[in-house]
């Protein structure tokens, strides 16, 4: 049954509370093969790899994992290591307080003569050898915290190379590497392939995929779409596999919006993560921001809202330039921001709905030390009704609400400030369909009421259905701004095309 596959993952299922994230996935790889694993954000790539690495466990009684044809159990990182599986995680996971070689050997330190005692000399020698081979240009006795992000990422790669792995998983390894560093990495990958090591390579960058991979596996919504030889595919075909063909099922936003004058204009905005961002937003418009994770959309929002520093560029509100240096400047200019991670940035979970709803508008009903209870109740009632927040009472703690209802509380909190411009960052992430629909209605209602909405979402349908115009970002830059006409005709493939770094005129 296994024709020389080193690793076979068969019929893998994974369920998180409330969501099935992997659905009968088969994944097989041979030694000496470089396999690209592709799919949209949330397609299940990272989850599958975390199961392989022993960080998550697959659902009980579902599927099998075979190494060289023999069934194995991978329940812990140690198990994965034993079977020669090494994972370079997307988020850098190094201890910054320690040296480079300590990090490279973390968890598999070399023993001196006696077991349990360290052989630092040998660790330094071997670590330095691998670092030199990759031309990272550092002394392995340096502290990791003193290194740049790119160098830190290279250290993660060194760690995998040194572990004598049979299968190395690289989850977006190039996201912060320079072109030269990428070249060096690819050189190493080719060398590893010759040495008979299997590489699973996760990346959103098409060029890289075709440069380095032998075969490509595509996942979508937790299901396996297919595995093909790289030669059989091209950009278009991969994107088609990634987004699927069921595009017609989604209704367009047919509401006729009354679009008014320009109320927000961003000109040549630059900072560490953003390059030359320029766009305009009109009253009553929904401007969708599409792009892959890390494309810089949230960073754009954070810069406009005054959380991240702006190095150069202008922000004009209502035609007048405003200096936004902090969130309170932004609020004063009439901008509201519903952040991406509602738990960390948008809500005080351990407090009541009432508290959270009114925290940004306290001055409306508190004069000096007098609290106008009636006014407070009015404000709360208005939004609770408007959004149909399901709750026992306004005193209920926010942490016991469902994700959808939590999100409604965050949105309400900002609506209460009556903003002219509202930035919504991934407003429907992790909430169920019902709540999503309510939030969609809310967004459209806001636009109808004349609010200018800036909508960031990784869900393509959401962007396409709701937006008046669509901005596509890639690596901190704006790759394309689709006009109203283009937005109406756009299909997912077009947006994916720009989102993976292609230009307009490159299209076929």
């Amino acid at each position, binding site marked *: 049954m296994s024709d020389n596959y080193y690793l076979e993952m068969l019929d893998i299922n994974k369920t998180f509370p409330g969501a099935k994230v992997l659905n009968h996935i088969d994944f097989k790889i041979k030694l000496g093969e470089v396999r690209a694993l592709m799919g949209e954000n949330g397609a299940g790539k990272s989850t599958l790899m975390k199961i392989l690495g022993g960080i998550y466990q697959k659902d009980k009684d579902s599927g099998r994992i075979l190494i060289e044809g023999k069934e194995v159990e991978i329940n812990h990182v140690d198990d994965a290591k034993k079977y020669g599986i090494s*994972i370079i995680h997307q988020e850098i996971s190094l201890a910054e307080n*320690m040296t480079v070689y300590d990090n490279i050997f*973390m968890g598999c330190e070399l023993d001196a003569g006696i077991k349990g005692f360290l052989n630092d000399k040998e660790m330094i020698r071997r670590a330095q050898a691998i670092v030199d081979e990759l031309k990272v240009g550092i002394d392995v006795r340096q502290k990791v915290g003193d290194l740049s992000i790119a160098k830190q990422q290279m250290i993660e790669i060194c760690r995998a190379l040194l572990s004598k792995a049979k299968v190395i998983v690289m989850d977006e390894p190039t996201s912060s590497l320079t072109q030269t560093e990428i070249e060096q990495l690819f050189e190493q990958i080719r060398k590893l392939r010759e040495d008979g090591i299997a590489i699973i390579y996760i990346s959103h960058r098409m060029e890289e995929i075709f440069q380095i991979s032998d075969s490509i596996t595509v996942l979508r919504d937790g299901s396996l779409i297919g595995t093909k030889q790289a030669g059989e595919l091209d950009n278009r075909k991969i994107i088609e596999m990634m987004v699927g063909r069921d595009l017609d099922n989604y209704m367009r936003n047919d509401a006729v919006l009354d679009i008014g004058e320009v109320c927000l204009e961003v000109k040549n905005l630059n900072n560490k993560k953003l390059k030359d961002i320029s766009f305009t937003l009109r009253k009553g418009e929904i401007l969708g921001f599409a792009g892959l994770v890390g494309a810089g959309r949230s960073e754009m929002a954070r810069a406009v809202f005054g959380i991240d520093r702006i190095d150069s560029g202008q922000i004009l509100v209502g035609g007048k330039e405003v200096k936004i240096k902090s969130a309170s400047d932004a609020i004063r200019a009439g901008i509201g921001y519903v952040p991406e991670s509602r738990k960390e940035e948008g809500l005080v979970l351990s407090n009541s709905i009432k508290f959270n709803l009114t925290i940004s508008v306290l001055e409306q009903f508190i004069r000096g030390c007098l609290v106008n209870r009636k006014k407070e109740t009015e404000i709360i009632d208005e939004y609770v009704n408007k959004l149909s927040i399901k709750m026992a009472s306004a005193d209920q703690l926010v942490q016991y609400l469902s994700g959808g209802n939590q999100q409604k509380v965050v949105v309400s909190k900002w609506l209460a400030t009556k903003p002219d411009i509202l930035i919504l960052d991934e407003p429907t992430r992790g909430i169920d369909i019902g709540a999503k629909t309510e939030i969609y209605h809310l967004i459209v209602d806001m636009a109808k009421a004349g609010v200018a909405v800036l909508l960031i979402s990784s869900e393509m349908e959401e962007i396409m259905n709701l937006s008046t115009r669509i901005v596509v970002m890639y690596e901190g830059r704006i790759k394309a701004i689709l006009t109203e006409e283009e937005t109406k005709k756009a299909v997912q493939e077009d947006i994916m095309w720009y989102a993976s770094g292609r230009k307009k005129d490159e299209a076929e």
Partner: protein
Amino acid sequence: MHRGGRKMKQNENKKNYLIDNGLVGFVRRNMGILIGLAVLFLFLSIFTDSFLTTKNMLQVLRQICINALLAFGMTFVLIIGGIDLTVGSVVAISGVSIVMLLNTGMPLPAAFLLSLLIGSLIGVINGSIIAFTGMPPFIVTLSLQGAIRGVAYVITDGRSVSCENEVFNAIGNGYFLGIPLPIYIVALVMILISVILYYTRFGRRMYAVGGNVTAAQFSGIHVKRITVWVYIISGTLSALAGIILASRMYSGQPASGQAYESDAIAAAVLGGTSFNGGIGTIGGTLIGALVIGFLTNGLNLLHISSYVQMIIKGIVIIGAVGIDILKNRNKKG
């Protein structure tokens, strides 16, 4: 957190970024506190007659031994990102235990070992609750601090228990070659735990756990196991301190060791141990303990009231740690 801001001029002066584990590196890293220690020493030598005498020096060093042992354990706990507030109570219960056991006629080695094990057991309890329930170390050890002291009061009926065992009483009061015995014990412990911290896999993994728990987990390090062991070490060292203190006082006293955890934490932090975990050295902690010991002794010799002493100590600690933080901030630019 502030990763982005760290595009440093990396290779210009590479050597500066290496961790120098030699004496020079140690002095450089602890420069502030060493200067403080020297100034304190000089000041007290000039302004008091009795400070710089052999008798007083040996006396102070003997006093410092108790805090040094607690502070070593605390350093371990702080390195993995925890805290142990039970150390003072463990001092009390182990001191009471050894005296009571000796009074039943149990031979000294057995009583000694058993009392140490009581400290270890408390470490197991601390560590297990923290590792397996995920409760914050501060809360767990704060609660147990009261509980353990309560036990010490209950088993003694709230009275101190005096000890007639001559050999036992010599542990805290005796001399060998003119030097108090506790100093030998602390020196021995220091060598032992330095070896653990710097030369073993376990020690290295402690830094990994404190530096980045996720990274440690992803690397296959058994974080829970390490956590439990570190609290065991802290508990055992506290028990050792308690035994020495009981011997010194010729009695086990349930009220002893009150608020000792704060001096232990102060010594570790003065010595450069980070409250955020991942950073700390045994040598630094020793210097921290010396500073606190000399300061207390000096203030006594200057006849400053114990109330005013509390104020001065508080200011010194805030000042020393504050200077250290400012220094590091400047270095990072």
